[in-house]
């Protein structure tokens, strides 16, 4: 990336969400959360075409149940 493009990126936002996903990915064990990908809700959400219906999938859980590791 050129230095000007890097400046554009900084200008867009100081937040760096990519760094954190890398951290979670490194800590996570293979296969954790695979069950989620098999649920009807996930498939319906992923494959639905267009519109506000089914636009949002919400994984709801109390602190510490491992929501972040589903990423």
């Amino acid at each position, binding site marked *: *990336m050129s230095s*000007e*493009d890097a*400046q*554009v*990126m900084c*200008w*867009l*936002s*100081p*937040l*760096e*969400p*990519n760094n*954190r*996903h890398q951290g979670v*990915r490194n*800590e996570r*064990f293979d*296969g*954790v*959360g695979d*069950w*989620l*990908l098999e*649920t009807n*809700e*996930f498939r*319906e*959400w*992923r494959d*639905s*075409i*267009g*519109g*506000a*219906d*089914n*636009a*949002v*999938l*919400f*994984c*709801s*859980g*109390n*602190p*510490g*149940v*491992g*929501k*972040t*590791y*589903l*990423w």
Partner: protein
Amino acid sequence: MIDSLCDQAKREDIAVVGLYCDFPSQQDQTITNIMGAILKQLAGRGAMPNHLRQAFQEGKAEFGGRGPRLADMMRLLRIAIASLPKVFICIDALDECLPKCLPELLESLRSIVRESPNTRIFITGRPHIGEDVRRYFPKTLVIPISPNTDDIRNYVEVRLDRDAEPEAMTNDLRADIVGAIQENISDMCVGTSSSSTLLMMYTY
């Protein structure tokens, strides 16, 4: 989940962006910066679009230079999303978003979905945040998450296999450890720190 969507994204021309709401600096956590973080990830997929360079130059040229305004950011974001057939926006720990940002964030997401109906949004958060989400997206699909028995058993098995003193392990002890942890699953967390603490208590 993101990785699975990303694998799909490699095959098709779709984009997956992720946000964690517990940003270290709450001061930086404004709705404009959050939308900017989405745009940044979309822009980072390929060559920098010229209209973004131009918007940056215009912002810089103004007195003292300024950051993007929310309306500008939303306009730029809409252009980026509209150029892709499908965009997945994944937001972790929505309940950790600053309360003053939450309604604006949900409203902005709703406006994105209305304008680009192929946008899908994945949210994780504590159950109470579900009410806020449904206020903006009444037909939200919900999956309740509880500690998953299989995930935890696999984790414990792997940790036992990697134990520093394998000679101290017997089949009976191993079965006791796995059994006891599974029995107590409802009281524990799946996060690595608590599981390993519990395991250490059994090991010593």
